[in-house]
């Protein structure tokens, strides 16, 4: 499954990319699976995702929790807790 990933703020800085397209294995089914899988991709990912519980996720531009299933297509964004306003 091909998925577009977008990163913001310190997640983007630590991974070193604003976005990328990845090919996900079939057993990566939920947001939590995705975070675990990404962590294995290198030291930069490990640093960015070392505390997965603080990572916020949006699926197709809507907030989602870590138990949410991944969509068949679209974009998944990973970012720190928001500090706007």
């Amino acid at each position, binding site marked *: 499954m091909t998925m577009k990933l*977008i990163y913001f*703020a310190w997640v983007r800085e630590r991974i070193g990319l604003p976005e990328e397209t990845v090919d996900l294995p079939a057993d990566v089914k939920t947001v939590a699976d995705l975070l675990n899988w990404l962590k294995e991709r290198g030291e930069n990912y490990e640093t960015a995702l070392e505390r997965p519980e603080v990572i916020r996720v949006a699926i197709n*531009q809507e*907030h989602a929790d870590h138990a949410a299933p991944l969509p068949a297509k679209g974009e998944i964004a990973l*970012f720190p*807790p*928001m*500090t*706007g*306003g």
Partner: protein
Amino acid sequence: MRSVCEPLVRVQAGDFDLATEARRLSDGRRDVGAIVSFTGLCRDDGGRLEALELEHYPGMAEAEIGRIAGEAAQRWPLSGLTVIHRFGRIAPGENIVLVVAASAHRRAAFEAADFLMDYLKSRAPFWKKEHAAGETEAGWVEAKDRDQEDMKRWKR
């Protein structure tokens, strides 16, 4: 059923003008009895801060603020609602965010503006980076637990 106002949401790099935005919600109307506005400004934190850099998620920022504004319009009888959030580099003294709520009566306008700001802070995809005076490395602002607590005030 009462009619629900269509909120105006803008996410922009440029500044906004409070008077213009407030006038937009009362011009040509005779039913508006209250306009409440909140303006969030960049502060220098006792001279420490040189500038803020606001990153946002284009597309989702507009969509999420639209969802929050839509919920406010459902919950309170508003005649108009405007939310403007800036992004990019913002210096102390400059505007960051504006909420203007109009209604026949003050309570709805006060509460809707308060609700909007609590939700914006924790749910709108914006991130602040601080450029401190005399430091080369800029640091990300950390989210406060207090902001999460503020949001709980509106659970029902």
